[in-house]
C-alpha cells in the first residue's frame, strides 16, 4: 500500500480570497488578507505578514498595523467545498481517495490517495506525482505532498517540514519516529504535559509502557500512533463524487463588472472540470446562475437571479474553451443588478473516452476545431448569424436559395455526406457547361428588386443605358401564395461592361408612383 497525502496549508485563506474575485493575479497576491476567529487573527497571507499581522493578534491590532487589510471569517463549509475539487482531481488517478474524518486542525485540509495499484499505469511514483500536481494546478492552491506506507502516517508526515517521501514501511516508521508529537491529532491537548515530561517526538513515546500512556493521554492517541506505524488496520472509505454537479461561490463584495463575474465563473468552471475528470465524462450543457441583491423598493421588478445557459455542440472538458464561450455570452447579457452569489450547474453529461491528442492535424481534429470555431462565432455573433446556404425548389429566384442556421454538431456527418456526393460527381466525366441563357443565374441577388428608369425604351442604371444582350426568360410562379411573380428576365450589359440581370414585370404595377416603367434590377453577375 502506498499512500500519498496532499495537504493544503492555506486553504482557508485561498477559499476566502476566491470570493474577493480579484481577477488580476498580481493584485491578488499583493492584497493583505487575514481570517478572524473570535476577534483574533487565525491566519494571514504573505502580504499581511509582511505588514506585521501574525496569527494570535487581536483584530484591532491587525487593523492598526495594516489599514488596507481585508478581514474575513473562516467558513468550514466553504473550505470543504474548495477541498472537494482537489479530491476530484485526484480521483482521475486512483479510485481510493479519502478525506480524513473530522475537521479538527491536525488532519484538516488533507486528501489521501492510495496509489499502489496505479503506479504501473502512470510509470512510477514520480511521474504520477508530477501529473497529479499538473492536474491540481488550475485550482490555484498551495500544496504539500508526502508519500508513506500507511494512511495515518502520510497524513502526519505531510505536515513535517519538509514533507518526506517514504515508500517503504521501515522508512515510514523511521520518519515518523522523528516527527513532533503535536502532529498526532488526538494527543494535542496533552502537548504541554508531554513537553513537560520531555517527550517531544513520537519516537520518545514508543519506548514507554502502553497501559500508562493510554491511562494518562487516552486510547485515541495510542490508536492513532499504531495506525500510523502500520500495527493496526486502518480502513479508509473512498469518496464518491456527487451524481450531479452544483457548486456555489458566495462573493465577499457585490460584483459590479463582468470581469469579476467572469473570474468567479472561472473558479467554478475549474471545479466543474475536475468533477468531470473524476467521472471520465464531458459536459454538453451547463448553466450559470447569478443571484442579485434584493431590492426592497415598491414595485421594483428586478429579478432575483439571472440564468445563462451554455449548450455545446461537441461535449467538452476544456476549461479555456468553456470560459471563452461564457465570456462571449456574458458580454451580451445586461445584468439588472449587482451579483452577490454565483452558482454553476452541469445539466447534460456525456460519458466518453478522452480524445487522443495528435501531433499533426488530422481530419477528425480538423472537424473538432471547426466545430469549436463555429461555436465561438455563434456565441458572439448570435446563433442565426452563422448560416448555411441551401437550394430551394422554387422558380422564383429570390426564393430559390435558403439560408439556415449552421449546426456545428452536425459537421462530421455533413462532411461525410458531401464527400460521398463529391466522389459520385467526379466519377462521371466533368462536362463543359454550355452557356444557355435559360439557366444563367447571377451570383448576387438584390434582396429587394430595384426599379429602374427608362429612356427611349431602354432601361437606365445609374443614369447610363443598359444594353440588352440575351433574353427574355419568362418566369411565372407563385400563384399559390402572396408572392406572385410574372417576369421576363434579360441579361444586360452596363456602360462599364458589367453584366446585370434585369426583368420587366408583366403585370401592370398598381401603385408605384412616378416610376411606371416596369424594369427592375434583380441581380448582378459576380
Amino acid at each position, binding site marked *: 500500500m502506498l499512500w500519498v497525502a496532499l495537504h493544503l496549508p492555506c486553504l482557508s485563506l485561498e477559499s476566502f480570497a476566491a470570493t474577493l474575485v480579484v481577477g488580476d493575479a498580481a493584485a491578488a497576491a499583493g492584497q493583505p488578507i487575514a481570517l478572524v476567529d473570535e476577534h483574533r487573527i487565525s491566519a494571514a497571507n504573505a502580504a499581511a505578514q509582511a505588514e506585521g499581522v501574525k496569527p494570535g493578534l487581536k483584530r484591532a491590532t491587525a487593523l492598526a498595523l495594516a489599514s488596507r487589510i481585508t478581514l474575513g471569517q473562516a467558513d468550514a463549509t466553504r473550505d470543504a467545498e474548495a477541498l472537494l475539487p482537489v479530491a476530484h482531481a485526484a480521483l482521475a488517478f486512483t479510485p481510493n481517495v479519502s478525506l480524513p474524518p473530522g475537521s479538527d486542525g491536525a488532519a484538516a485540509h488533507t486528501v489521501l490517495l492510495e496509489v499502489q495499484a496505479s503506479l504501473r499505469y502512470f510509470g512510477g511514483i514520480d511521474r504520477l506525482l508530477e501529473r497529479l500536481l499538473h492536474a491540481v494546478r488550475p485550482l490555484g492552491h498551495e500544496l504539500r505532498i508526502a508519500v508513506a506506507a500507511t494512511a495515518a502516517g502520510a497524513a502526519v508526515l505531510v505536515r513535517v517540514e519538509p514533507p518526506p517521501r517514504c515508500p517503504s514501511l521501515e522508512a515510514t516508521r523511521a520518519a515518523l519516529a522523528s516527527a513532533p508529537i503535536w502532529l498526532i491529532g488526538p494527543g494535542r491537548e496533552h502537548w504541554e504535559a508531554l513537553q513537560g515530561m520531555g517527550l517531544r517526538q513520537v519516537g520518545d513515546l514508543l519506548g514507554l509502557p502502553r497501559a500508562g500512556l493510554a491511562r494518562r493521554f487516552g486510547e485515541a492517541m495510542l490508536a492513532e500512533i499504531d495506525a500510523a506505524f502500520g500495527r493496526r488496520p486502518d480502513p479508509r472509505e473512498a469518496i464518491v463524487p456527487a451524481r450531479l454537479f452544483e457548486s456555489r461561490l458566495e462573493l465577499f463584495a457585490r460584483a459590479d463588472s463582468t470581469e469579476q463575474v467572469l473570474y468567479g465563473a472561472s473558479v467554478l468552471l475549474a471545479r466543474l472540470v475536475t468533477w468531470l475528470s473524476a467521472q471520465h465524462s464531458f459536459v454538453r450543457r451547463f448553466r450559470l446562475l447569478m443571484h442579485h441583491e434584493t431590492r426592497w423598493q415598491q414595485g421594483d421588478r428586478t429579478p432575483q437571479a439571472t440564468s445563462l445557459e451554455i449548450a455545446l455542440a461537441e461535449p467538452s472538458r476544456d476549461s479555456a474553451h468553456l470560459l471563452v464561450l461564457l465570456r462571449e455570452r456574458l458580454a451580451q447579457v445586461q445584468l439588472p443588478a449587482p451579483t452577490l452569489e454565483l452558482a454553476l450547474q452541469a445539466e447534460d453529461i456525456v460519458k466518453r473516452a478522452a480524445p487522443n491528442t495528435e501531433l499533426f492535424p488530422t481530419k477528425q481534429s480538423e472537424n473538432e476545431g471547426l466545430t469549436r470555431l463555429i461555436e465561438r*462565432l455563434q456565441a458572439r455573433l*448570435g446563433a442565426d448569424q452563422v448560416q448555411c446556404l441551401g437550394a430551394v425548389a422554387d422558380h422564383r429566384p429570390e426564393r430559390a*436559395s435558403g439560408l439556415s442556421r449552421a449546426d456545428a454538431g452536425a459537421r462530421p456527418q455533413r462532411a461525410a455526406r458531401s464527400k460521398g456526393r463529391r466522389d459520385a460527381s467526379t466519377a462521371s466525366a466533368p462536362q463543359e457547361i454550355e452557356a444557355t441563357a435559360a439557366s444563367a443565374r447571377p451570383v*448576387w441577388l438584390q434582396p429587394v428588386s430595384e426599379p429602374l428608369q427608362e429612356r427611349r425604351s431602354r432601361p437606365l442604371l445609374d443614369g447610363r443605358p443598359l444594353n440588352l444582350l440575351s433574353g427574355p426568360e419568362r418566369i411565372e410562379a407563385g400563384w399559390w401564395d402572396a408572392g406572385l411573380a410574372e417576369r421576363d428576365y434579360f441579361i444586360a450589359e452596363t456602360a462599364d461592361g458589367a453584366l446585370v440581370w434585369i426583368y420587366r414585370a408583366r403585370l401592370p404595377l398598381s401603385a408605384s408612383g412616378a416610376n411606371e416603367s416596369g424594369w427592375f434590377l434583380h441581380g448582378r453577375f459576380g
Partner: protein
Amino acid sequence: MDLVPLSLVDSLPAVQLPGEWLPEASVRARPQTARPVVAKKERRAPETLHPALWLGHQIGRTAGDAVATGFAALDAELPGGGWPRRALSELLLPHAGVGEIRLLAPSLVSAQRAGRLVMVFDPPAALSAAALERLGFDVEELLVVHTRARVVPGSDSLWALEQALKSGHVGAVLAWLPPRLRTDRLRRLQLAAHNHDGAAFVMREASVAGRPTASPLRLALQPGGADRLQLRVLKRRGPPLEAPLQLALPPVLSSAARRRSESDRERASAWQAATFVNFA
C-alpha cells in the same frame, strides 16, 4: 573562402613545386597537367540560395506552394504560380458584380473538393445557390457569416475573420471588409493569416488603391466587357505589372450574345471616333 572573380582565374601564378626552382620560360613550357586547376566558381543566383530571396526584376516565390487560380495568364503573373497561402490577397472592386466570384471560383471549388471548409464573411448581397452550383460549389458546405447584424457596428467583423484565420482549420476565406479600414487592423489580419493554410481573399473598395497595405498581393478588378475581366496587379512580390490582364471568365452568356455585345462595343467606339471630324 572568398569567391574568386572569373576574370582573374587565368592570371593566377603557377604553384612552385617544393625543392625545385625553374626559370620562367620553363614554367610556361611545363605541361598543363602539373598546374593545379582552380575550380571555377560560378556566381550562384540568390534565388537558388533560399526560396524567399528574389531579385528586383524577378517574380518572387511563396514559401509554400500556391493555390492555382485556374487562369493560366494570371498564374504566370502571380508569385508562386497562384494565390498565396498563409497571406491575405486583396481585391479592389468598384462595385459588387464585376466577375469576382467567377474569378475565385476555381480555387474555392478546389478547396471544397479537397474536403475543406470555405467561409464567406459579410457578402454584400444575397447569394444565389443555383448560380454557385453552376460554378461548381458544394452549396451546402458553404458557411456564410453575417457579422453586422448588431446595431452597434463594432469590431465583430474583424474579430470573426481573425478567429477563422487563426483557427487554422478553415480551407479558404472570402471576406468583405468594412470601408475605410485602418491599416493596423489589416496588418493584424495579415498576421492572423499566417496560421491559415489556404487562400484568404479580402474585398475592399477601389478607392483604397492609393493607400499602403500589409497584404503581399493586391489586384484591382474592373469589368472588361461581357464575360471578361480586366485585372491590374497593383502589388505583388516582384516587378510591377504595367499592362492590365484581360481574363475570359466562365461564361454566362451564349456565344451569340457575346458576339453581339462585342459588335455593339465596336460600334459605340466607332461612333465616338466619328464625332471628331475635321471640317476644315
